[in-house]
């Protein structure tokens, strides 16, 4: 039985990692806690919902349309609204992104109503048996997606010229600018990429659970736990943190009861922050690798 919970937790953790990646990337590169990240997730889920109902595409295929749209929107938001605020410090950004999330939530309610929606696909209700334990197919898809996203981001950041520019801007914006890196552009693209990653996570959420206008904050909280555990700003940390949160949730829920699930998770968050603020796997906070 215990072994089954481990497997369940592992794959649930893949889903958690996929929603937390964007948050950790933005924090790692521009030291910004984006409180609107949850709305990027849910916004993408709504957008996927719209696309699938309009053209009857498979939700995962419709990501080909959704991801670029979300990228463009968030790039614009970053350049126009957030970029001028970065030099003014963290509290300003918290308030600004919080304002964004209020606006986005209201927009969702006005457009889609208060109902809980969900995305449908042939694989949402099926399961696959692994070592005798049945796991939801969508969790396995999410796990694979999370691993692919982390490896992809790692390769981009280490191999590509642009990725090196991102790391330089993350390490020391002033020095990066002095060697000719367009730091605002780097920030804007990073924010867009983070939102695009969240769009994938959001669609996976929409396929796994229902979502409403305010579900974003719930997922934002989970993402916080994941990235604090893995080390804020760390890519691999997000993956490992996601898996760890998933496993802890499943295992403790099976021991003390499902109603204490959130309590354990949040208590764990505080505990980690007190004992090891840099996260379990991160060395020093800052560079997004």
């Amino acid at each position, binding site marked *: 039985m215990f072994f089954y919970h481990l497997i369940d937790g592992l794959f649930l953790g893949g889903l958690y990692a996929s929603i937390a990646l964007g948050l950790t990337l933005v924090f790692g590169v521009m030291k910004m806690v984006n409180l609107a990240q949850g709305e990027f997730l849910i916004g993408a889920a709504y957008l996927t919902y719209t696309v699938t109902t309009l053209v009857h595409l498979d939700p995962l295929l419709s990501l080909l349309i959704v991801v670029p749209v979300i990228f463009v929107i968030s790039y614009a938001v970053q350049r126009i609204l957030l970029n001028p605020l970065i030099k003014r410090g*963290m509290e300003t950004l918290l308030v600004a992104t919080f304002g964004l999330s209020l606006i986005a*939530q209201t927009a969702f309610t006005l457009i889609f109503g208060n109902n809980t929606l969900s995305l449908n696909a042939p694989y949402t209700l099926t399961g696959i048996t692994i070592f005798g334990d049945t796991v939801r197919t969508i969790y396995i898809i999410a796990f694979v997606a999370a691993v692919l996203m982390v490896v992809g981001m790692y390769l981009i950041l280490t191999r590509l010229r642009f990725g090196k520019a991102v790391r330089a801007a993350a390490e020391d914006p002033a020095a990066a600018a002095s060697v000719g890196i367009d730091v605002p552009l780097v920030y804007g693209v990073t924010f867009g990429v983070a939102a695009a990653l969240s769009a994938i996570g959001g669609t996976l959420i929409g396929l796994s659970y229902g979502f409403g206008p305010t579900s974003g904050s719930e997922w934002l909280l989970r993402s*916080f736990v994941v990235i*604090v555990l893995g080390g804020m700003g760390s890519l691999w940390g997000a993956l490992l943190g996601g898996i760890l949160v998933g496993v802890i949730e499943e295992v403790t829920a099976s021991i003390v009861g499902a109603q204490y699930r959130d*309590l354990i998770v949040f208590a764990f968050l505080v505990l980690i922050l007190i004992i090891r603020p840099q996260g379990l796997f991160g060395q020093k906070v800052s560079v997004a690798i």
Partner: protein
Amino acid sequence: MTLSERQPEPTSPETVEQPAKGTWFEKVPVLKRSGRWIKWGLLVLLLLLALLGPTYLSVFELTLAFTLFNYMTLAQSWNLVGGYGGQFSLAHSLFVGVGSYTLAVLLLHSNVPIYLTLLLSGGVATCIATVAALLLMRLREAYFAIGSLGLTMAALTWMINWSYTGATSGLNLPPTAALDYSTLYYLSLALLVLTMVCIVLLVRSPFGLRLMAIRDDQEAAAELGVNSFPVKLITFAISAFFVGVAGALIALNSLSIEPNSAFSLNWVITMIIITIIGGISTSIGPLIGAVVFFTLQQALQGYQNWSALLIGVLLILIIRLAPGGIWKTLVNGFQLLAEISLKQRSAGQQSASQQQEDTVENIV
């Protein structure tokens, strides 16, 4: 302590020094003499108007005023920690909930008189805040915000499951707890005045200077011998006391409490919105912010979506264009007007005697 190695952020708008009281009107000769009197006169007038409230306000208006006063108290308390202290706390929802539940439990299970219960609610909130501060005060900036958020959510999920306090269904206050509207009004007014006086005095004391020095640059403050930990801890505890009493008042007004609303994150979100709109790190800002926020909320009551949208837009506009909030923008505007009018006057008096010109220039 890897966190302390992080580069200090560039000065945020909240860390802009509070303008020394009275600078702008001291530049206008007439106002320089009477400014102080005008200020105190206005204050006394407002207090008198508030004290006589129940004689000219209807019951409905009294309950509105009760909520408004509570908003002011809550926002000012958050401002002490979040504005003057620069600690972006999301744990203040926790203190509202602790205040509410302490009052309910004491009234249900003991014979403590109701007014003492209010103070005890604040006391328990202070104790919880002290423990929270011991746990979290080592963290800074985003880490502190996330830690305090985690603590609040942990407390909320605990309360949802704790059968002693009625779990999800919460508690109903005994019938003896029902107070009439003017008493509640006066209680909330008294709490507001107490909070204002304490926080204004605290901020202007040497202790307040230490607090703001830590906010602006903790390392530099440490070099000068300011130990940040006790200062932050005491500020947090004081702030929690007022929030706890306000939480108890809110419970007294609604007469039944349940965890999802008592510990709701909306409390701290409201405090932050009010403080930012009105003017963070100013003593008047939260009052003005509360009036603006509450008016918006009431005016658009039937259109909750639109009021949330409007507040979101307002928040972004203010943080982008007027980071000091409404109050600082007003003060700066007046200052500008006063300077312009003075310049015009001094230009018109060029022909006047040398001595007169000297005085005007001295004043400018």
